[in-house]
């Protein structure tokens, strides 16, 4: 795998993401001529159509970019850390933790503000991450990939059951939540993107800085230590990065399935199992996948919309099955 090939993949992914950003701004349930759309961006007008573009489509596109990058990179970190190609923030219980915290917060306080949930989502994501890690580590303090996956599945099941219980008993109060939990990008204003962005940026920076250490640690805990990796610190910082990325992403748009699983898988297939290349590629492909899902969701049953989270799950499930069937799942 030469550097030129890897750079070409990054360039292709960047082009794809930019193209999808353009589509996301141009396509919607209200048909507006493409030339007009771009005109509104350059010269804001006081019309309803201009408002649709600048106040709905642009923020929606931005949040897809931020959240898509966050979830894909978080998945890549999880898969590398656990040496399990099937690990993703959803499977490892982190999304379920965030959901439960949000449900409890809304149930207890009745406040339905995204800025307010964000902190609870973080807390829930972090608690679930730590819980899964401890449960998966056992007394020997070595978290094997299989045990982590089992712990994640178990905790996800338990947390999801709790979420369902609370939702079913508070149906009126949870209309907002049920909308959130479907993973929608609709109606998320710029202020939400703004609130999530610093956490996502910090998480992405950490992910890039951790890439060489995770590469060394991917050769096994002892090999990593022999190469000079501070194993515990690297693990802790990786969990911190995942919590920042998933917490912010999930708080902003609700749990979105399969971006964290499928994108890192595609990135590895393209540039090989090297975090220094696959993290940047995830950072570009994650937004592309979420934008594509969101745009598709606006088109398939127009003028109705299907939430992006539902589209990613619908497309992701077959992808997941394909991965499991076509590849012998070796460890990372």
């Amino acid at each position, binding site marked *: 795998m030469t550097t030129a090939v890897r750079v070409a993949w990054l360039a292709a992914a960047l082009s794809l993401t930019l193209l999808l950003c353009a589509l996301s701004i141009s396509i919607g349930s209200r048909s507006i001529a493409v030339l007009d759309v771009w005109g509104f961006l350059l010269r804001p007008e006081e019309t309803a159509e201009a408002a649709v573009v600048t106040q709905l489509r642009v923020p929606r596109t931005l949040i897809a970019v931020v959240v898509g990058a966050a979830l894909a990179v978080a998945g890549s970190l999880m898969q590398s850390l656990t040496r399990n190609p099937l690990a993703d923030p959803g499977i490892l219980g982190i999304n379920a933790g965030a959901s439960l915290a949000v449900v409890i917060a809304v149930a207890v306080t009745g406040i339905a503000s995204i800025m307010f949930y964000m902190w609870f989502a973080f807390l829930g994501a972090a608690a679930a991450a730590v819980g899964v890690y401890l449960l998966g580590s056992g007394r020997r303090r070595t978290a094997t990939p299989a045990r982590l996956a089992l712990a994640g599945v178990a905790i996800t099941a338990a947390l999801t059951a709790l979420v369902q219980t609370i939702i079913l008993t508070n149906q009126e109060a949870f209309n907002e939540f049920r909308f959130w939990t479907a993973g929608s990008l609709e109606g998320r204003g710029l202020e939400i993107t703004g609130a999530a962005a610093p956490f996502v940026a910090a998480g992405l920076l950490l992910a890039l*800085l951790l890439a060489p250490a995770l590469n060394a640690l991917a050769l096994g805990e002892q090999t990593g230590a022999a190469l000079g990796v501070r194993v515990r610190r690297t693990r802790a910082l990786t969990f911190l990065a995942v919590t920042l990325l998933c917490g912010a992403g999930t708080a902003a748009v609700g749990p979105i399935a399969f971006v964290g699983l499928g994108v890192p898988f595609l990135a590895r297939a393209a540039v090989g199992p090297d975090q220094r290349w696959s993290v940047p590629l995830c950072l570009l492909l994650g937004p592309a996948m979420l934008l594509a899902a969101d745009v598709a969701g606006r088109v398939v049953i127009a003028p109705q919309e299907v939430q992006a989270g539902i589209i990613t799950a619908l497309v992701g499930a077959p992808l997941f099955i394909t991965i499991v069937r076509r590849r012998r799942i070796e460890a*990372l």
Partner: protein
Amino acid sequence: MTAAEMPTHQARLAARRLSVGYDSRKVLDGIAVEIPNNTFSVIVGPNACGKSTLVKALARVLRIQSGEVLLDGSPLSQYTPKEVARRLGMLPQAPHVPDGILVEDLVARGRYPHQGLFRQWSQEDADAVDTALRRARVEQLRDRLLTELSGGQRQRVWIAMALAQMTPLLLLDEPTTFLDISHQVEVLNLCRRLQREGTTVVAVLHDLNLAFRYADHVIVMRSGGIVAQGPPREVISAELIEKVFDLSCRIIEDPETGTPLVIPQNPDTAAKGS
């Protein structure tokens, strides 16, 4: 000559009163060991005698309970992990193979201790990878997937990864286990060559006859302690093998090299004799 009689300052790697254990069970109990410079040293002993633990403790992969490991005269604890990894390479028994990794990319990971936030991949790293591939004689495999290689080739690639660290000391934990005889010899010839090129090599081996043939210095262990150390011809005897491995045997000269060859006693003749 026992370890206590040898002057400590000569060896680049030594351990004093070293104890290592898991929870309350001590695997190594207050041992002293020195790795003579520029030799191929081999650690032998029965299963679960602490060979692997010793290698890991010497490489600071395991936390030690008491005593100290001295690297170039200073305790390991005074170095950062990367400083240790620039002086001492260690290959564990079962390193993990990332799915889809190419030989060259795997070997490049040996450069980790030489890189930092402001010093990413450089020409020096590329040169070190080339040198390591050449020394381990795996240059022609550089574009292959690791999973496609034979066991012997894989092991040489892993050694190349450790060589890319460019360390004067190299510790190998059972590098020949699971290899057939010709691949074992291939790996041991590589160790010998590396030693001649100036690297101090330490390996844990199971095959005693190959160990005594290749080793300049042998360290014989039994239940967490060191029973003997020195050149194989001087320290190996039938009594020692019987005591350490609980195996009645004869020692004859290896017809090829004159080194000790362990011949286990035939149980049928032993039964008649008793």
